[in-house]
């Protein structure tokens, strides 16, 4: 049982940047009285409370559900997206991972397509635009047939679910040396191409999503799999292979 086994002092180096256009810099803070049971974000809460008390601007970071599902949180912790635990978002990372006196370096996601808004908060709307370019099945409300009219092999449904588990946190692109959005884009593409409902728009979807991904300024995929390694939902880079295949098929198809 690791209940409040003493408290720790943690040294932080955090990227502070007042706004999108302002220059930023690393600043040092000391987090005192850190309990091992705290989540990483709760530790930041403590730091922020003390900043607020001193009348300083607290460190801005995105967060919401704090249970690893909304995809809001995300930062580079000691040079690795979402920190050291596999399959874990920052909000699920706990301070018992660290020792008294540790130094932790915290930086925002870095990518041309993810401009910094403030401190650790970046603009990830590029992901929304990639989805808008075809990450859905076009079916108007009310026009659906009975749910069981379209059987889906269980294995396909399960694999579609594996891909659909993406929380759009951006860690994949943040960790990738090329800031590529291939894992994100491919996960959605693969989910839909595994399902019979997704067939009609398959090639259009592949073409448009890939184009949008490029348009947003993400890099190319070097197939290193750093994305998969940091993905809190452990989405496989095999999805990327599927995307490539989908795209090739689409490109080879005749289209006006």
């Amino acid at each position, binding site marked *: 049982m*690791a209940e409040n086994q003493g408290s720790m002092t943690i040294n932080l180096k955090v990227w502070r940047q007042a706004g999108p256009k302002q220059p930023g810099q690393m600043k040092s803070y000391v987090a005192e009285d850190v309990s091992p049971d705290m989540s990483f974000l709760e530790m930041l809460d403590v730091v922020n409370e003390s900043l607020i008390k001193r009348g300083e601007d607290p460190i801005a970071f995105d967060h919401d559900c704090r249970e690893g*599902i909304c995809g809001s949180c995300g930062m580079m912790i000691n040079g690795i997206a979402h920190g050291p635990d596999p399959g874990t978002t920052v909000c699920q990372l706990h301070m018992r991972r660290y020792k008294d006196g540790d130094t932790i370096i915290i930086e925002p996601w870095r990518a041309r397509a993810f401009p910094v*808004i403030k401190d650790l908060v970046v603009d990830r709307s590029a992901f929304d635009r990639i*989805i808008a370019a075809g990450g*859905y099945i076009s079916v108007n409300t009310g026009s659906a047939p009975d749910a069981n009219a*379209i059987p889906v092999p269980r294995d396909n*449904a399960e694999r579609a679910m594996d891909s659909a588990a993406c929380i759009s946190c951006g860690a994949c692109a943040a960790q990738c040396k090329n800031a590529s959005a291939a894992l994100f884009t491919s996960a959605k593409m693969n*989910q839909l191409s595994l399902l019979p409902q997704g067939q009609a728009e398959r090639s259009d979807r592949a073409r448009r999503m890939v184009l949008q991904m490029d348009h947003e300024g993400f890099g190319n995929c070097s197939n290193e799999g750093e994305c998969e390694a940091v993905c809190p939902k452990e989405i496989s880079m095999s999805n990327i292979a599927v995307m490539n295949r989908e795209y090739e098929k689409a490109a080879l198809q005749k289209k006006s």
Partner: protein
Amino acid sequence: MKLDSKIPAGPVAEKWEHHKFNLKLVNPANKRKYTIICVGTGLAGASASASLAELGYNVLTFCIHDSPRRAHSIAAQGGINAAKNYANDGDSVYRLFYDTVKGGDYRAREANVYRLAQVSNNIIDQCVAQGVPFAREYGGQLTNRSFGGAQVSRTFYARGQTGQQLLLGAYGALMRQVDAGTVKLFPRREMLDLVLVDGQARGITIRNLITGELESYAADAVLLCTGGYGNVYFLSTNAGNSNVTAAWRAHKKGAFFANPCFTQIHPTCIPVSGEHQSKLTLMSESLRNDGRVWVPKAKGDNRPASQIPEAERDYFLERRYPAFGNLVPRDVASRAAKAVCDEGRGVGTTGLAVYLDFAEAIKRLGEDTIRARYGNLFQMYEKITDENPYQTPMRIYPAVHYTMGGLWVDYNLMSTIPGLYVLGEANFSDHGANRLGASALMQGLADGYFVIPYTIGDYLATAKFAKVSTDHEAFKASAVEEQAKINKLLSIKGSRTVLEFHRDLGHIMWEKVGMGRTEAGLKEALQQIPRLRQEFWENVTVPGPADNLNPNLERAGRVADFLEFAELLTLDALNRRESCGGHFREESQTPEGEAQRDDENFSYVAAWEYTGDFAKPTLHQEPLVFEEVHPSQRSYK
């Protein structure tokens, strides 16, 4: 003002059909002349925005999050109900309707619940067509699981991420419309005020969270799909951004707030580990199928669980409710856990937890079976607590989870302000005093996909609209007022943080307006809340800029609203001198300590009107009429 619920006449099974036929339509070519504002992109907001845009309306959609997909609906785990009867186990629209009315402890409107049950099947069809990867049988057909409060298997699910998958389906539909240009999306925007012109909802004032600027948007109708207010308790299973602000500001502009005291406390959450705690994590209800709940028999027994012999354990749910045992409904289980902790028999360092023990199930079924059933939950538990639940029992404690109360709406989902519609958890409509598991997702999508597209047309086709743009006085006045509030927050420069005030408020609410409510406690809370509110406005400190992203300032505004709203919630709890569902007045219990409803005096919806004085809202009663299901006392012995 007389409340008109606009419930159609006729047999309950035909009401919706008749009503749909009687609603006026907007002709297809005219739809694009109407602009509709939708605030919120959870299940309710995303589904409504997409569906209305598909019909041809111009839709402006707003959310606090950086992406519409992050709305709190994403966190729902368990599943969504529908009366498909694929399991062939005797389910029907009527049975789903019946279970939901009963589960709500007879404090919901029959007509609404019936409609909900009717459209539940269309929801599943719609979601499947969108590519939601629901769990399936080997034959490729959809599969179901069981949930509390029902004797049939009617819950559709996508692993432990049903809310996520449903929301992503709706979000996809929404983004498709964004792509088509029919929806304009405004993320990172917070609604601060509703703007009325000639008594109609004609727009909103929002704060652009990135630039800090106030912006005005005009429309012909406004939909609030802004979720629940569970965070009034500070600690809840809700996400950090969940708030009452939009609903509360609309309330202050004339929308009645209904049954705010109906809050649901979920029995199985990971307990608080210390002062630093920022939120609570739900452990699915399904765990109670195999886990046994117990505490030591002796007070202050702080031996590790493994060293407490069988004879010195109190399996209090099994003892008190032999028939249902560990599977009593949420409200009953929560109260029982609180009672043993109040007796000083709670476990863990805080003493605010009970054991949920799988040892027996593991012995009986083997660790592998348990792992297959609950593996992901056990893992999540271990991640948070650093304890291995295969070896030591889980520690759980009840936590605020859902709010049944919300803005009052009629059968068309329109509030008491013409043109203001309220959907999803933000309204009060379908769950009465207690929500059954897997029915909130159903309601959010029902409202957005299958109700509002019909009912809004009637209003647009029949109401008279003055030509209104954001140049109108009302928009300017609203913006000036909101800016003044923000400036005030920034200028106080006191010595306590927003978080501290929020925590204090949560403490009052949890202690006095939580699981067990007494007249004395509620009255105390009614003393404390205004005092805290006053202190807030005198002593809060909100550093940081107004013209830039400032999450702390956002939170300050929300806590300020919670501090006002909490008083209404408490007043409602005080007013309702009966126990029903999640609302337990200790004065009103059976000799065995169970909730005692008072149908004679309280079979009504309490709809509160803002009067300008937080202490004196006006109560309007909408009587509840039960033609189909006859209220009876719930018993789980």
